[in-house]
Each structure stands twice: as structure tokens, then as C-alpha cells.
């Protein structure tokens, strides 16, 4: 077990980033023209990094499996992006954003990284507005804000319920400007199949053209992996169907440590599963918890009657409803952080109070918000003594303006009108805090291989706060990586073009081909999805919202057996040399089958509960997470040693110099 060097600069917290920027080496503009950088993934982190690096003068190649960079899954982020602008004058500051993020992450993230994130957050908003991102505005023309879970200020900027889309289109437009200048070459419908190391440094990738099936070699002086999270290891998640861990996992197999894989975010407000055919889950933005109240019936007989369709939720009197978040956490109420809200929903449903056919759903109710807004609107419109119908109508209009697209999406999927009856929601896998281990410069343990956005582990600890993923992706891509990568590349100004005909590239390409041929040789009858669904069930049941030693041990065994079965039997029609979606899926699922086991191993070793990682053995009398700072105040970074079971643990001790470690309380 080694000790990891996070390369955190010395000095006071608030000065670290500025000092570091002044201390690191730069590459002069003429030399930048001779340096190539590969960016894999074109979401917020990858798109922003590619655009900025190209603008600085480097030659950039981007890769994405989608048909256009604009379709990366950042696009699906709904609610907003945090920034410590304090436009509302409600006491926000860089320090508060930093503090909320560390606390929200249950004291398992790095102080210096998180402070830097808070420090650059304001710049992100300036940048995006300059790029033409149409954020929501107030009547006076100023930017509007709203609140998200786990904080007591309004610091979330938003563009209706499509903030991720608008920010991604902003980054994509910045990319387009560089593509038009010839500084970015975009390889769309391409998948990274492996990382190529030369003399221990990342020097390129092997990619597959997903249309022709051709295997390609691409070299560069540095490789950036911004390929998102691994939530799809659960099969059902809010991730896109194609979201996968392949690039990160290939790098892991080549020597990049994988940090805290068990830190996964189960988002409390998703549309519940409706049946076995289900291919993915849909999120209902956390912003809805600004106005929606979460409840289940107080009495068991009411819960049963609602499940059987004999009673309607709207028929239940106020006193027969259990607004359990408001009851348990009066200070934060419905806006507790995601991990807390998810566990509370599970607790009520496990106790038998679930409200849909499967018993795995709770209500998210807008009736009080509609009434409150309706009265306010009536007042400002000068209506005297409006009747109830008028108030409801006015209130519904306000709610529609705020959340219209989400309500419409809900209605299309569930076939119920959420203005008239409460939504039904249940937690679902949404985001992964774990990822490739990176130092302060966002470099992995492989020199020249960087990781940004959700793909790295760095800023969210054991639980991410709402509207912070967009902030981190853009911070990494626009404002961090372009500086730190220059320090590394300053040593490469005399290297010249990296050849792709070296033995290292030969060997990497051969491995990729062998692996695909092995996948195609399966002799069984089951499809890739069959295995993926089985893996997902193991993960959800045994590595989901609550975990225990016995089941984690079972999961490790079951995943390992399933992996063996998969490699011997998976059935893939078609050929390697053409477009083949089944083969694409197979390569991704093969890696999930390894990652899943490491995930369970990580969860098993962490004998504490913190953030999204809840071990049933470690909880307080009230059922809250029981952290063990004495023994687990560290980042668990796993080194690949063949099978996942042999992975070797390295620890990065987390040092808190500016924040006192406390039991996280939202009561």
C-alpha cells in the first residue's frame, strides 16, 4: 500500500490556485502549435477543455461515440449550475460554496480542489453569458437564481429545465469555432478502445470508427479523458444508453488508479420503474423540491388503498399525510441533500408506505405551491377575493412557467397530470462521485493522462450536491485543465510528433483486435443486454442504497461468475468490420463486469457510512449515516493487478485544515 501525492500547493487555502498558476511552467504560443492533445468525450468537461486548449493554440483531436459532440449526456442535466455570485445578497461567498460542497460530500473530498472549484464558479457564469447561453432572467434584466438541496442560499443559475443542454451547446459552439479554424479535428461516432503508453507516458489511443468498424491509431503528447460516469453499471439509471466506463477502465488497466468506485449517487426524484421492459430511468429535476412537498400516507391502510387504486392521493386529508422530510429534517425540509432524501424514501417504502403498484414510490406534491403562487399572483394582479378555481388556475400558470417541460415529460411517461395529482417518484442511480484518481492538476497516476468532469473522482466526496456537476465539468474544462496541462507539456516542446508505427501502438492495437474477436466467439444464446440486466440487478440489490457485508460478498462472487459466463457465452451477431451496435454494447458491458466487482470490493472495505455509501452495520440510532473519520478519512485508490479481486488499495489521506469535521446534520 503506497501513499499518494495529491500535489496540493502550499500556502493559505484561498491563495493556492493563484500561487499555483504563477508557479507552473508555460508553453509559448509557437511551441503550442507543435503539440497534440487528444480529448475523449465531448460533454461539458471534454467540450470545454477541447475548445479552450485549441484556442490556446494546441492541436486538438476530440472523440465521442455520439454522432455529434452536442449529444453528450451533459445535455440531459436539468436543474442548474451553482456559482458563488451572491447576486441575491443572501450571504453567499466562495467560502460558503466550498463549505457546503465539502459538507455535502460528507467530508470525503479534497479541500484545495473544492475551494478552487468555488473560486472559479463565478467565472463560469460570466463565460457562459458571453457565449450566448440564455439563462433565466428577472424582469429587470438580471440573472435569476433558485435553490438546490443541501444549501441555505440561492446560488443556482438555470435555463428553464434544460440547463445542461444550454451549457453544452455553449461549449459545443466554442468547439465549433475551433473546428472552423482547423484547430480541432472532431472524430464523432468513434470509440476509444485503449490507451497507448510509450515510456510510461500516455501517448495516444486506439479508436474504433463505429460506422466502418475500422481500428485507428491516434497519437498525442497528452490524453484527456472526460468520458463521464459509470452509473450504467446498474443497467437502469438516468444515464444515456451509451454512457460507459470503457475509456476510464482501459486507462485503469494501463495503470491509472480508480478512486472510490462505491461512491454513487442515487437521486431521490426519478420516475419509478414501470416494468421489466424498462431500458432507462428518467430524472425529475431536484429543482422541483423547491416547490414540491414529499409525502407518503401516515396510515398503512391508506397506503394499501392507494396502491390498489381504491383511494386517490388527493382524497387524503392533511393530517393523514406524512411529510417525512419536513418531519425528520425541519431545518432543510424537502431540500435535504440527495443521499439523505433517497434513503428516507427507501425507509418509508421498506416500511410498507410506498404508493404505487410495486410499493416503490412516494409522492411529490405541488398542491401547496400552486395555492401559494396563485394567491400571490392574484394579489399582484389586483384581483380581490379570488375564488379557489381562479387561485388554482393562476398558481398552475406560475408552476408551468417554472417547471413546464418537466411536468410535460412526466405526463408523457406516466400518463397522469401532475398539476392535478401528485407525481410519483423513487430514487434511481444518477451520478458517480468515484472515478479516475487525479492529483490537483487533474493528472491520473499515468503521466500525460488527465481526467476531467464526472470521469474523475475529485470534488464531490461521497455525495454530490445538486447543480454542482455542471459547475465541476465546466470548471475543469475551461479553467483548470488548460493551465495545468501546460505545465506537463512544457517538457514536450522538443519531442516532435509521436509516431504511431511504434511497437507500443502495434501491441495496443493487437490487444484491441484480440479482445473483439474473443467477444465475437461466444457460443451461448444470450444477448449482451441479458448480461447487463443481470449485472444491474446484482448491483441494485446488493450495492445500492443500503449495503451490508454479507450481500457485498455475495455480489463479488456473483459478478465474477457472471463475467466468466459472459466471456464464454455472449452472443453477438454481425461482424467486427462493420457497424455493429451489439458489439459496441458488449465491449462496454465487459468493462462494467469488471468495474462492478471492484465497486463491491470498495464498498466492502469501507467499514463506515458516508454520503451515498450507506452500510447497514454503521448507522446511528435514528438511522443516519455513521462516519468513521479515524479509520476512513481517506480516498481509496485502487491499482489494477489483473482480476478486480486482486486490486491493490492505495490511500490518500484527506487533510482538513480549514474545516472542522463534524457529523453532518440537516436537522
Amino acid at each position, binding site marked *: 500500500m503506497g501513499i499518494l501525492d495529491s500535489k496540493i500547493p502550499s500556502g493559505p487555502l484561498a491563495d493556492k490556485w493563484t500561487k499555483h498558476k504563477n508557479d507552473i511552467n508555460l508553453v509559448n504560443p509557437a511551441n503550442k502549435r507543435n503539440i497534440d492533445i487528444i480529448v475523449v468525450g465531448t460533454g461539458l468537461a471534454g467540450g470545454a477543455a477541447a475548445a479552450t486548449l485549441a484556442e490556446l493554440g494546441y492541436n486538438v483531436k476530440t472523440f465521442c461515440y455520439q454522432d455529434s459532440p452536442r449529444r453528450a449526456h451533459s445535455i440531459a442535466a436539468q436543474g442548474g449550475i451553482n456559482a458563488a455570485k451572491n447576486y441575491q445578497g443572501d450571504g453567499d461567498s466562495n467560502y460558503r460554496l466550498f463549505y457546503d460542497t465539502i459538507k455535502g460530500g460528507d467530508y470525503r473530498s479534497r479541500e484545495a480542489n473544492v475551494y478552487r472549484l468555488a473560486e472559479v464558479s463565478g467565472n463560469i457564469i460570466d*463565460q457562459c453569458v458571453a457565449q450566448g447561453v440564455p439563462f433565466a432572467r428577472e424582469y429587470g*434584466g438580471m440573472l435569476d437564481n433558485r435553490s438546490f438541496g443541501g444549501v441555505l442560499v440561492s446560488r443556482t443559475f438555470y435555463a428553464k429545465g434544460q440547463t445542461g443542454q444550454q451549457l453544452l451547446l455553449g461549449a459545443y459552439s466554442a468547439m465549433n469555432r475551433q473546428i472552423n479554424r482547423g484547430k480541432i479535428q472532431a472524430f464523432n461516432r468513434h470509440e476509444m478502445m485503449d490507451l497507448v503508453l510509450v515510456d510510461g507516458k500516455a501517448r495516444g489511443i486506439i479508436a474504433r470508427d463505429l460506422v466502418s468498424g475500422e481500428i485507428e491509431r491516434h497519437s498525442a503528447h497528452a490524453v484527456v479523458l472526460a468520458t463521464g460516469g459509470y452509473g450504467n453499471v446498474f443497467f437502469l439509471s438516468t444515464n*444515456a444508453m*451509451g454512457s460507459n466506463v470503457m475509456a476510464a477502465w482501459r486507462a485503469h488497466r494501463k495503470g491509472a488508479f480508480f478512486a472510490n468506485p462505491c461512491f454513487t449517487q442515487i437521486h431521490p426524484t426519478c420516475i419509478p420503474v414501470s416494468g421489466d421492459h424498462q431500458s432507462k430511468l428518467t430524472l425529475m429535476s431536484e429543482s422541483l423540491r423547491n416547490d414540491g412537498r414529499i409525502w407518503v400516507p401516515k396510515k398503512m391502510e391508506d397506503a394499501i388503498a392507494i396502491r390498489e387504486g381504491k383511494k386517490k392521493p388527493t382524497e387524503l386529508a392533511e393530517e393523514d399525510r406524512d411529510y417525512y422530510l419536513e418531519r425528520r429534517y425541519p431545518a432543510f425540509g424537502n431540500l435535504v441533500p440527495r443521499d439523505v432524501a433517497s434513503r428516507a424514501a427507501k425507509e418509508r417504502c421498506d416500511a410498507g408506505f410506498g404508493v404505487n403498484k410495486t410499493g416503490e414510490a412516494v409522492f411529490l406534491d405541488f398542491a401547496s405551491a400552486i395555492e401559494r403562487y396563485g394567491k400571490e399572483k392574484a394579489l399582484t394582479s389586483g384581483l380581490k377575493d379570488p375564488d379557489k378555481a381562479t387561485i388554482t388556475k393562476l398558481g398552475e400558470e406560475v408552476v408551468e412557467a417554472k417547471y413546464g417541460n418537466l411536468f410535460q415529460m412526466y405526463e408523457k411517461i406516466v400518463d397522469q397530470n401532475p398539476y392535478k395529482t401528485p407525481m410519483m417518484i423513487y430514487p434511481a442511480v444518477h451520478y458517480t462521485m468515484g472515478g479516475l484518481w487525479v492529483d490537483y492538476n487533474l493528472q491520473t497516476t499515468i503521466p500525460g493522462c488527465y481526467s476531467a468532469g464526472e470521469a474523475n473522482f475529485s470534488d464531490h466526496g461521497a455525495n454530490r450536491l445538486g447543480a454542482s456537476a455542471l459547475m465541476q465539468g465546466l470548471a475543469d474544462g475551461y479553467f483548470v485543465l488548460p493551465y495545468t496541462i501546460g505545465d506537463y507539456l512544457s517538457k514536450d516542446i522538443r519531442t516532435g510528433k509521436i509516431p504511431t508505427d511504434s511497437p507500443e501502438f502495434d501491441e495496443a492495437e493487437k490487444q484491441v483486435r484480440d479482445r473483439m474477436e474473443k467477444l465475437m466467439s461466444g457460443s451461448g444464446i444470450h444477448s449482451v443486454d441479458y448480461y447487463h440486466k443481470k449485472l444491474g440487478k446484482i448491483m441494485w440489490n446488493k450495492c445500492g442504497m443500503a449495503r451490508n457485508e454479507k450481500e457485498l460478498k455475495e455480489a463479488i462472487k456473483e459478478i465474477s461468475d457472471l463475467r466468466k459466463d459472459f466471456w464464454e457465452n455472449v452472443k453477438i*451477431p454481425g461482424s467486427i468490420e462493420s457497424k455493429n451496435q451489439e458489439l459496441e454494447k458488449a465491449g462496454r458491458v465487459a468493462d462494467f463486469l469488471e468495474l462492478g466487482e471492484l465497486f463491491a470490493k470498495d464498498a466492502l472495505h469501507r467499514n463506515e457510512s458516508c454520503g451515498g455509501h450507506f452500510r447497514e452495520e454503521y448507522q446511528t440510532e435514528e438511522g443516519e449515516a455513521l462516519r468513521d473519520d479515524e479509520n476512513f478519512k481517506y480516498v481509496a485508490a485502487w491499482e489494477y493487478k489483473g482480476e478486480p479481486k486482486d486490486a491493490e488499495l492505495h490511500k490518500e489521506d484527506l487533510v482538513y485544515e480549514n474545516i472542522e469535521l463534524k457529523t453532518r446534520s440537516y436537522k
Partner: protein
Amino acid sequence: MKLYLKIWRQKDASTPGKIVDYTLDGVEGDMSFLEMLDILNEELVSKGEEPVEFDHDCREGICGTCSLQINGEPHGPDRLVTTCQLHMRKFNDGDTIVIEPFRATAFPVIKDLIVDRSAFDRIQQAGGYISVNTSGNTIDANSIPINKHAADEAMDAATCIGCGACVAACKNASAMLFTSAKVSQFALLPQGQVEATERVQNMVRQMDLEGFGNCTNTGACEVECPKGISLTNIARMNREYLSATLKG
């Protein structure tokens, strides 16, 4: 329910395609249209046949990857949804459903139901951006107040997901709704006005180069657009284009 599917199968861009018949049983109303195709594909794979390839990703109506011409309509019979959000409850037991790729010269078929929409990327590369550096050293976000109405209208235009339904719906395979949405977003914001003249000219030039047809104001694009992008954007682009031409 039981469905009779007529699906366009095409090996690759250079091989001619044809409609192939499939019968699918056990379809439920709560399934999305793509989940229905998943089930068909599971059956095909278990028989050792190649599954029907189609584009899809987020399956929540925002990435714009999914397409499909369903019974002659882009994204099928429902309004304001993409194919991934279309649910089978919109169909009846015993229905015959014809499923084809989006048809346009500028969208060549790659395989089965997958088409190449990279022409849209090239239109945006021609000018769909504001030439501001991403270094972060810009002015404070609140230093230019923007009228809420204009900001909201820009947002409405910006919600275009670039799926290509407008092109598939148009008898001329015109990309005017798509291009105009992008032009409008920037035209409505003060930040976009600096380069407005060049932007509209460059984007329209690229749109024509890609082989899209012209607009004859039938409005089919607006009807089929899953995001409800308004035809007024086309009027705005025409005005922008005309004034840009006059300015030279």
C-alpha cells in the same frame, strides 16, 4: 398487444435497402417506442439474426439522437415528443407500423434506420457561435441587462435538439427551421449581435451547400418539431439575412 412492423433494412450506405416485415407480440402500453424495438431486437439476436440498428441515447427527449419516420411522421403520431418519449399506448392491438429512416438527400442512410446528420454540425461550424475566448476573463454576467422577454425567446429558440425532424417533415427537405433557431438565439441576445451579419450569411451558405431544399412555408416542420420551435424563427432569419445582404 400484437403489432405488425414494416421496417427499413439497409446493410450500409452503398447497398440498396428494403422494407422487411416483422410480427411482434407482448407489447405493453407503458413501453416506449424504442423499448418496443429493443424487444424485437432481443428476439432477432436470440435467432442469430442481426438486430435493427437505430440511433438513440438519452431516451429522455433531450439529446436529439433518436429519429425514425413512423407511419410517415418524424417521431411518430404524438406531438411535442421525440421517438424515445413516444409510448406504445398511442397504438392499438393489431396495428401495422411502418418504420423508416429520416429521408433527405443531406441525411444519407448509414445503416438500417440510422442516418448521417453531420450536415447540421457543419452549419453550426460555419458560424453558430459567438467568437469569445473561453479564458474566463470576460465582463461580469450581470453587466449587460437583458430584457426578460428577449431572453425567454432566445431560450425558446435555443431548445432545438438538432434531431432533424424538421428536415424529414419538409417536402423540400429544408433545414430552415433548424438553422433559423440557431440564428435567432444569437440575434435576440446583445452578445450575438456583434457578429450577426457574418453569422447569418455563413450559416445560410453552408445550409445551401449541404443540399437542403428551400422553405415554402407549409409549416410541417413546426408541427412535427418535438420541441415546438416556432416558424417565426424562419421569418426572423429571413429578415436577418436580408438586412445582412443589404449591409453587404
